[in-house]
């Protein structure tokens, strides 16, 4: 990844910005969301206004080597600070994948098994949490993501 950073530096004007978005090295976790009784039911569109949403943590997915790519990206940005960049700002947010049913979620995992897997215990907890929801629940896979802006020195 260092060559990509070097190339970015080359094509940027002095004081130009290198902006990066990538998942952190934290494992992905699973939650069950449902709207507060009587509140807006299609809350996916309102997911950034979380006051009316009940969130039940279910647990963590299992990863093999895919997280190493993410930590390598973080390392590349850290090394960029020795390659003519200064840190402007960095912040994180939750990248969320929404699923209406457990089957939809497991099918998604089967199609992306090289990225993450869910244990049987995790799926059972998710199913229980979805059954206990008082309004229509959604299964939410949450991936912590970091956004970083670095400024090129002259």
């Amino acid at each position, binding site marked *: *990844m260092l*060559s*990509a*950073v070097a*190339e*970015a530096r*080359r*094509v*940027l*004007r*002095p004081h*130009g*910005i*290198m*902006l*990066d*978005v*990538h*998942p952190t090295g934290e494992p*992905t976790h699973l939650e069950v969301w449902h709207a507060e009784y009587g509140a807006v039911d299609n809350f996916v569109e309102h*997911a*950034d206004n979380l006051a009316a949403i009940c969130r039940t943590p279910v647990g963590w997915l299992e990863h093999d080597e895919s997280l190493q*790519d*993410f930590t*390598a*990206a973080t390392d*590349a*940005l850290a090394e960029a600070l020795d390659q003519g960049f200064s840190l*402007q*700002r960095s*912040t994180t*947010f*939750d*990248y*969320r*994948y929404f699923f209406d049913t457990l089957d939809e979620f497991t099918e998604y995992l089967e199609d*992306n098994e090289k*990225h*993450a897997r869910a244990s049987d215990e995790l799926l059972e907890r998710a199913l229980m949490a979805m059954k206990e929801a008082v309004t229509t629940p959604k299964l939410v896979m949450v*991936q912590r*993501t970091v*956004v*970083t*802006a670095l400024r090129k020195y002259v």
Partner: protein
Amino acid sequence: MPLATPSDLELKTIRSLVGFSGCRVLEIGAGDGRLSWPFAPEAAQWIALDPDADEIAAARTEQERDKEKEKVRLAIGDGRALCFPAGHFDIAFFTWSLC
């Protein structure tokens, strides 16, 4: 994991760090253009690069469907060997691609 349409939270978080207005932007690892379409209209120039020809083809299909997205110049390319002149861009934007 395959990425979906960016959420308002993702877009708002990116905007909180940088403004694209009037900027020449090189997006590296643009994929199917999910982060190109929301921001490119503000920029003076937006070049979206990805090494995956299928992703660029998907982005082109989207441009054909929505003419307002034609501002984005799509290209197959590798961020480790760029064919652009030195000092040309205001922003180099790695979109889920440095990893």
